[in-house]
């Protein structure tokens, strides 16, 4: 081989911000340090939490000598797919009753988004139409953009979402952007617990959104990473998806079981496909198989087995819902405690958004200078956007975080 390398010109890529934050946190020696960065649940002791029901089910699986490590089908474990879709769409879903729902087991929510995006690029709005506009909320999870770009879409746009001034949903801007979007555009909608803002449309606002999307023939692609985790109630967190289904939409819903089952590293996700009828869904699934086959061939079995076992056993299912509520409740408690402290301190600004927002994340409204202060001076790690992970708060660090925010806000404007 020649002295020069074929990869001589490969540039060093910047690290993914959220992981860099955690890396910096790890290096920090300050005993007061707090990690409000990466989105994983933590207990009040600041520890990861393997759900008790998951421990139980894993033991069951380990003791089952009839199980082996054989390949799953390309589309995944059938019991997982059916039950995962059922969780999203509801027991009484008419779409399920009419047999026009399909599921594709994927590697986490990311995998579900990618398979859905690859399919849409190949088959939606023509054949291999890379010019169909894809709308992503401003802001959104930063990987949304990458997923759709890598799936081949050339026209990724932002739709207005977060109103920084009023610290809430910019519904007017959102609806305007939908009205002016080209017909057949794809819209990525956060099913609940919007990441990173924690701000969801109300039920009435969802109805307005759905009405515009229907009239303009816009395609709803839901990202559901926090079902159950947001409000503590599975049905409530799935309301928007189910409403769209009842309104007759064909849609995709990328589901993640990373957070609500705490199965982060098992990579458990499901892409639910709702179509007009069985025949359409079957053909869609057959093409999804082709896409899956060249990316990962077939999905990993462990996580799907855990979820399927849990969802199909009434006792375990009840236990799981309870575990989920435990997590949701702790987050809700931290929200109210943080808000109460900020209000008690008289921290400038309004802080009701802390409790009005929902899910793991909160867009605090802190600006870059204030964030820098938090990280550098107070050793409290949060995203440059001002996003904090509520799970990083504990009864032990609430006071320190609240007073630090107070300092940051009063020192810098």
């Amino acid at each position, binding site marked *: *081989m020649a002295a020069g*390398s*074929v*990869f*001589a*010109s*490969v*540039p*060093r*890529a910047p690290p*993914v911000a959220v992981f860099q934050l955690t890396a910096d946190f790890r290096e920090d020696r300050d005993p007061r340090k707090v990690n409000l960065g990466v989105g994983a649940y933590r207990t009040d002791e600041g*520890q*990861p*939490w*393997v759900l008790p029901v998951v421990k139980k089910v894993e033991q069951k699986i*380990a003791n089952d000598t009839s199980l082996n*490590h*054989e390949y799953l089908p390309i589309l995944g474990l059938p019991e997982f797919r059916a039950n995962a879709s059922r969780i999203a769409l509801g027991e009484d879903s008419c779409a399920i009753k*009419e047999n026009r729902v399909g599921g594709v087991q*994927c*590697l*986490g929510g*990311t*995998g579900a988004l*990618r398979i859905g995006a690859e399919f849409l690029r190949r*088959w*939606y709005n*023509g054949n291999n*139409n890379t010019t169909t506009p894809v709308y992503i909320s401003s802001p959104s999870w930063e*990987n949304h953009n*990458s*997923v759709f*770009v*890598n799936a081949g879409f050339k026209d990724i746009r932002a739709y207005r979402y977060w109103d920084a001034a009023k610290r809430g949903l910019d519904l007017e801007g959102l609806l305007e952007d939908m009205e002016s979007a*080209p*017909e*057949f555009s794809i819209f990525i909608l956060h099913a609940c617990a919007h990441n990173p803002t924690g701000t969801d449309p109300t039920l009435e606002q969802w109805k307005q959104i759905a009405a515009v999307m*229907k009239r303009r*023939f816009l395609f709803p692609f839901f990202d559901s990473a926090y079902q159950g985790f947001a409000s503590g109630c599975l049905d409530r967190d799935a309301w928007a998806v189910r409403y769209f289904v009842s*309104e*007759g939409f064909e849609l995709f819903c990328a589901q993640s079981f990373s957070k609500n089952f705490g*199965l982060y*590293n*098992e*990579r458990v996700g499901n892409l639910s496909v709702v*179509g*007009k009828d069985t025949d359409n869904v*079957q*053909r*869609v699934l057959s*093409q999804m198989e*082709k*896409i899956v*086959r*060249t*990316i*990962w*061939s077939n999905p*990993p079995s*462990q996580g799907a087995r855990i979820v399927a076992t849990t969802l199909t056993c009434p006792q375990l299912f009840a236990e799981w819902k309870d575990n989920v509520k435990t997590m949701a409740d702790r987050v809700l408690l931290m929200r109210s405690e943080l808000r109460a402290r900020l209000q008690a301190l008289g921290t400038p600004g309004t802080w009701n958004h802390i409790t009005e927002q929902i899910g793991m994340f909160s867009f605090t409204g802190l600006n870059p200078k204030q964030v820098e202060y938090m990280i550098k001076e107070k050793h409290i790690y949060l995203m440059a956007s001002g996003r904090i992970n509520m799970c990083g708060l504990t009864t032990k660090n609430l006071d320190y975080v609240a007073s630090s925010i107070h300092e940051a806000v009063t020192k810098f404007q």
Partner: protein
Amino acid sequence: MALLQPARRLLSAAAQRHLCLAPVAARASSWWSHVEMGPPDPILGVTEAFKRDTNAKKMNLGVGAYRDDNGKPFVLNSVRKAEAQIAAKKMDKEYLPIAGLAEFNKASAELALGDTNEVIKSGRYVTVQTISGTGSLRVGASFLQRFFKYSRDVYLPKPSWGNHTPIFRDAGMQLQAYRYYDPKTCGFDFAGALDDISKIPEQSVILFHACAHNPTGVDPRPEQWKELAAVVKKRNLFAFFDMAYQGFASGDINRDSWAVRHFIEQGINVVLSQSYAKNMGLYGERVGAFSVICKDVDEAKRVESQLKILIRPMYSNPPIKGARIASTILTSPDLRKEWLEEVKGMADRIIDMRNQLVANLKKEGSSHNWQHITDQIGMFCYTGLKPEQVEQLTKEFSIYMTKDGRISVAGVTSGNVGYLAHAIHQVSK
């Protein structure tokens, strides 16, 4: 240009609202009306037909997974032990890094190259955990598509694993072929391969099966690998190794990775896909790795950063279970020793079945030369049977295989090898 769905526009608002009770006409209009049914998978079709067959003597020789002498899936003891050890540690389920489990990556590279390899010692490589072999190939193909600016062409041996072509194609590369299998000898077309490879445009990508070629079972001999390496070097070709059967082919992990190591020794910086589906029986756990041999550590770091950028929008980070098992086995002396024995056991059973099949064919009185069955290596065997003969095997004897005459030797047992030999003799005498 947006392709409209005109029928949709004609739907009345009322029909759109009440689609649960809507008339059929309204429901017929779907975004997916033009989506064709995907062609049925040829190998899956074989298994489906096998399942439907009620003949007690039926054999499924399409299966691409190892079976023991009772025809059952085999969970390795070393895997069971590793699983128990891991379970006892009660670890959490936090996300792995994008590149996967570091201990696994290191152990995987060392398994492939040998831990005293200069590449390992110098650190001039990067290994990322991938979703088994397929995931590794796809990450590799995508990396080449983005950063290998010299050519879009990937040369595959003829024939190759069926999924190679769509993987590289979906990643944006173009497929070409070089001669490999000689149907006249049921062996390696060495002259043809050398001839074709010497004419490949410089700086094209060429893919090699490191051992146990799928689907033919035909591997080059070491002297032949040496000549192949020389030509690759001379033509400045980019070598992509697919190693899905290390240990599983000959029973010896070093022997099976000889070609990869030889190329590197000759100064060829290869990329390598590894799978642990077969050699550790970890099929559904999806354990694999992708490695890039680089010029130096700095290049390795740059390449790694870009591999992560590719992986993140595919599936964010890999599943842990299989990688932990593999890593535990590879890094625990006792488990590693046991694993090496077990993988040899699997390889030996396959070799034994090959020997028995040939012996039984002789006993049946077949006058054909079946030496290729024992010359070939690994899970698969290109019998040389024609499609009509394959069809007859299926219809008359309920023996299922792919039309190209490929059998999975893993599906053969001491209990059915006699029957298989008899049937093959009947259709070929």
